[in-house]
């Protein structure tokens, strides 16, 4: 039984890690730009396909491919900001609709470029850490470590750098930030780059574990939305805590009952948070 529990903790830690990366990116984009980016799941998919291209097809070292994936998906984010979200800045619904269109474009590009079938990404490592009877493979451990490093770096960036302050100022009040001389366009560009890049890294790091397919974004976007609602829309800390909470609840319920009940419990968790604290665990109540 202890092995069984430990294995479940390992599984939950991995799930919490990549979901936290995706959710934090989504929150950052929403917080700074006020856009619900429905294409966020497809940015995760784009990160996975970057690994297919750079690592599986062209033989670059895995972590070089991850870095290239980060830059590539970050640039996709900038492209979205320049061509979709900026022209539609005064129309939040327009941004949402445009992101759905971009989602379909990314899926189609993946189908045309890589085919319909799921892709085979060679294993990076076959080994793992064994504790008792529980196993944490190095690939999964790498996802956890990279998540911790990136989120810590993001925290430092937001708290200690001028650009980080600008991002946080925009997230609090865009107009007031603009009045203080902060460039809204520049901060939006940064937010999109970082938010998209985080989703891209999540896709890239998990690519050897999930067999990328053009439609893999669907499966994560709903969970990401649940997480940011539970954590508090706009709260980065909330997204991390909610990702951990959701992943542990979901994984334990899946392991002890089944995956369908786990989904129901996940939604009940969201419902309970909305009833008890409508602004989410770390959300701030809006003033009337």
């Amino acid at each position, binding site marked *: 039984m202890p092995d*069984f529990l430990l*294995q*479940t903790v*390992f*599984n*939950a830690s*991995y*799930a919490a890690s990549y979901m936290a990366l995706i959710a934090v990116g989504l929150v950052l984009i929403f917080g700074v730009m006020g856009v619900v980016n429905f294409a966020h799941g497809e940015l995760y998919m784009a990160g996975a396909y970057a690994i297919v291209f750079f690592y599986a097809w062209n033989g670059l070292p895995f972590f070089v491919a991850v870095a290239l994936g980060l830059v590539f998906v970050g640039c996709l984010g900038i492209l979205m900001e320049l061509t979709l979200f900026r022209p539609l800045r005064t129309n939040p619904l327009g941004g949402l609709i445009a992101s759905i269109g971009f989602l379909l474009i990314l899926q189609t590009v993946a*189908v045309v470029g890589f085919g*319909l*079938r*799921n892709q*085979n990404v*060679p*294993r990076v490592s076959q080994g*793992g850490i064994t504790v008792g*009877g529980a*196993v944490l*493979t190095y690939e*999964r451990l790498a996802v956890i470590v990279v998540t911790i490093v990136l989120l810590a770096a993001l925290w430092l960036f937001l708290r200690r750098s001028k650009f980080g302050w600008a991002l946080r100022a925009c997230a609090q009040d865009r107009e007031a930030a603009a009045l203080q001389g902060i460039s809204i366009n520049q901060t939006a560009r940064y937010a999109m780059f970082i938010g998209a890049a985080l989703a891209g890294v999540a896709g890239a790091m*998990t690519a050897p*574990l*999930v*067999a990328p*397919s053009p*439609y*893999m974004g*669907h*499966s*994560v976007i*709903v969970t990401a939305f649940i997480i940011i609602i539970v954590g508090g829309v706009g709260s980065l800390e909330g997204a991390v805590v909610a990702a951990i909470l959701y992943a542990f609840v*979901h*994984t334990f319920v*899946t*392991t*002890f009952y*089944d*995956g*369908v009940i*786990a*989904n129901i419990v996940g939604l009940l968790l969201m419902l309970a948070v909305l009833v008890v604290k409508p602004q989410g665990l770390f959300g701030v109540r809006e003033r009337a």
Partner: protein
Amino acid sequence: MKSEPNFSLTRRSLLTGAASAALLPIVGMPKAAFAEGDVIKIGFLAPLTGPVAAWGKPGLDGCQIWADWTNEAGGVEIGGKPYKIELVSYDDEDDAGKARTGATQLIRENEVKFIMMLGGNSWPGVEEIAARQGMMVSTLLPSDLTPDTTTLIAPCEVHPIYNVTGVEWLAANRPELKTAVICAQDDALGKPSVATYLAAFEAAGIKMASEPLFFDPATTDFAPVMTQLLANNPDILCLDTCYADYVQPLCEQAFQQGYKGQIISCTLDFYQRIVDRTSKEFMEGVIFQFPDFDDKALNDPRINFKKPNEYYAEYVKRYGATQWSAVSWEYASILDLWADAANRAGSAEPEDTLKAMKEGGKGKHAFGDARWWGKELFGIDNALVGDWPVVVIRDGKATIAEFRSIPDWWDKNGELLVKHMTALGQMWNQRT
């Protein structure tokens, strides 16, 4: 300004023309010349894009080979006259609404004589127009069948009933295995398959070590699923009819979490990739139900599929070995049955062809003699069942171990199947 085409005769073109003329008796003239209008159109209505495209597109590719070969050989002879076959495809994206639009277009505009579908989610959109127009439609999922679907047939794959053959073979060859666990995605494909495996395990005297584990089709991380499955140390790990996207990570998780027992699955698409990502030793002896068509066992005279080894080679040549899947041959095999029935009926009209196909309640499907069956499970005898191959991974390669009879199993254990189908709400009169 338009440039004038250059028609000047060069020495090279003269030599090429002369050489072609000289070679004509060797390479031969086209075997058949079809008069304009001597064309029969067959509709292909299946997901060609979207998450379920892997169950449609490889089938269309296979049908194109069938059509090319058939037309090169002179077409299909109907009423003493050769007809060219033309495939008309429509991407239903596994959506009932799009399937309705596609069926309407195929029937009214393209005037097809027969429609092949994947079925499942898309069938409800087609049911009404197929009944109204009397259009013969084939499905790969016999769970679409009801007493009202008189023009719908499942002539190739009677999913998931053939899975009983794998369990029966396993019980006969590895009687020491006593306990099993099973998981499946919680959908219309997973549930009837679970019921079938439960019946097959019960018939074989194999106990379930835990309740069937259903997971959300949106699942991406299968580690928790596998942790639960392996908690009771089962002898047999059954992966049911999980989609290819799930089978691979499930096998990997089983490997990583130290499972050393027997694996049985309905499909094992891209198994070579799974072997590469786990190990030959781990995958040795894995049982599933879909052979590679380069298997020499398919050259047996009872097999009712033309030149399976050559077909596989052509498929690999055109589309690549990695594109071969369980459905790559199935739709083409249905075309074989259709062509034979149309030939016997002397007519390509759906009503005549269907009548000829079901004549005498017997027929031949891809793996030999078969009978029209299904009343007890589907309320109508529109599923063609016979033998089905049991495929085993040996030294990293899928090999047909034996053909086993589904009707024989049914005659002995039919009640068990009905019991488990009923328990999971999968009988035709329980489905909504």
